[in-house]
């Protein structure tokens, strides 16, 4: 079982890229499970065409009667989708929410029942507390991929994530799988991304250009490969999926 986590600044394209990788690998015959670990709970909307109920909301509603069937939604394309969920903005503890949701999934035996070949954790960008490092802990993701553009704040968040991964090296947590460059068209963007990768002794495993098709597909709540299979973005995303797989070899 390949287990990976996608991190990066808010809005940088984590869910878009995660969903497209999931859809692509599913098309290639793998069983993929995508777990949204962001209180926004919109990780899997492109795959499901709608919002799905979250583990935390369901736990609150059903308590110990919660079953795997309640929490897991299989998308029309065959991706096994889960959203951890979290509190509404401004209250509660989102980090603790991620821990609780992931522990619940494990307790319910999600990984044993669905036996996925690939698990993708799509995690909220800034690793501001212990909860958001949960997906990189032992037993969860084995590799972390960081999505960034050449923009300053995006690189800053990416560097923080890489640093967290480095700090946890002695703990048997996930290692850095590589950087995914989602271009925003800033000056010297590729060089800047390369510099970041070098700083953390990793590499750029894939790149994605700014794309109108991605936005149009987003409006239709579809993955771009589904809406515009022939476009450049779809091809780039397929190469990103290759890059992810290759880094596990």
């Amino acid at each position, binding site marked *: 079982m390949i287990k990976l986590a996608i991190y990066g600044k808010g809005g940088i394209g984590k869910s878009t890229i995660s969903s497209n990788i999931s859809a692509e690998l599913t098309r290639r015959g793998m069983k993929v499970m995508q777990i949204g670990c962001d209180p926004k709970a919109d990780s899997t909307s492109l795959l499901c065409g709608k919002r799905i109920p979250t583990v935390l909301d369901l736990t609150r509603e059903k308590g110990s009667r919660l079953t795997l069937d309640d929490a897991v939604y299989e998308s029309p394309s065959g991706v096994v989708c889960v959203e951890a969920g979290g509190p509404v903005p401004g209250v509660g503890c989102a*980090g603790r929410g991620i821990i609780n949701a992931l522990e619940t999934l494990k307790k319910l035996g999600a990984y044993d029942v669905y036996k996925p070949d690939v698990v993708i954790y799509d995690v909220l960008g800034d690793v501001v507390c*212990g*909860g958001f*490092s*949960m997906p990189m*802990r*032992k037993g969860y993701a084995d590799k972390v991929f960081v999505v960034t553009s050449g923009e300053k704040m995006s690189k800053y968040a990416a560097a923080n994530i890489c640093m967290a991964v480095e700090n*946890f090296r002695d*703990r048997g*947590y996930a290692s850095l799988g590589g950087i995914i460059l989602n271009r925003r068209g800033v000056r010297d963007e590729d060089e800047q991304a390369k510099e970041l990768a070098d700083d953390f002794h990793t590499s750029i495993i894939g790149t994605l250009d700014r794309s109108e098709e991605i936005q149009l597909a987003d409006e239709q709540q579809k993955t771009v490969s589904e809406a515009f299979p022939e476009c450049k973005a779809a091809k780039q995303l397929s190469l990103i999926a290759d890059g992810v797989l290759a880094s596990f070899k």
Partner: protein
Amino acid sequence: MKNASKMIPCYSADTAGVCSAMYELGGMTVTHDASGCNSTYSTHDEPRWYDIRSDIFISALTEMDAIMGTDEKLISDTVKAAEDLHPKFITLCGSPMPMMTGTDFDAIAEEVERRSGIRTFAMHTNGTHSYIDGASEAMLAVVTEFVNECPKADGIGVNILGMTPLDFKWRGTSDLMKKWLGESGLEYISCLAMGSTLDEIKNAASAKVNLVVSYAGMASAEYMKDKFGIPYVCGVPFGIRAAESLADTIKKAAESGSSVLLAERSTDTCDTVIIGESINAVFLSSALYQELGISSSVICPLPTETRLLNSCDAEYLAEEDIEKALKELSPKTVIADPLYKSVIPKGTRLIGLPQFAFSGRCFEKHMPDLIYTDIKEYFK
């Protein structure tokens, strides 16, 4: 509000269960919690505190530690203490605050083990579960780590699993258990974890049968059944006749190799209700039937499994559910810890059976000896 206890106390928490299970085994137990909390886990809940030495520590977690996530202090303090004390193993326990901040005890335990060279267990306690869960996890860790295949003892060797002072009267019980085993022609191998050394427990695989005396011992019993093929028998040797029949059950299990979970109970309508830990309560019910002809049902307010209970028994965790059930059953007699008094209907007779995990030291002096002892007088 469901599960809020308004009148009765709550049972000792998971952390107390770990501390209690590990108390006599020569390890060092560290709870990651605010300074002062040690008294909750290990003095109030621990009758051995003034009599037997045990290396139990609190990490003195501060607000700043929690905010900054400084696990390093816990790790280095633990390693330093271990260098001075040379414990046989180390156990790390969580509490509510580290639960909220998501402290990774598995990773911390690995780090402590690497630096100290001493086997370190991470317990997944957080103070919100019962002592049964904590004791169960601790006992399973000990068995998994320290019990290895070894030659069988000559006679019918027996381990006692799941015994802590939280469920059993500390003074006297071990002697009575050994006396009962000896007079029944059974051989005492070890007791997890009251009155045995770690060395005795290391020999546990030489036993032919495991006796599970509380649900805290169940996970260890299941493990040893899978790993060493040792069958288990659930039961507590209350009374004389019932104790003798339990000894017979053990002998049969030694011969057949199959486990026995259920007790001999009456199926008549019950005018007596016993409230308590499942295996204790069920086997007290059985003993009352065998010795006095009393039919009783059990209310279990602690973690257990339905397969251990009869159809007339019930698992209720919330105070209001227990109160309601008692009203509906309207029994003549309730046997329970004296602090259950406030939820028992007026006019119902209460026979107090103090339990350390429920009322701590309050009634310690009034705890009766019921193991391999005539119980007729006490429950008359």
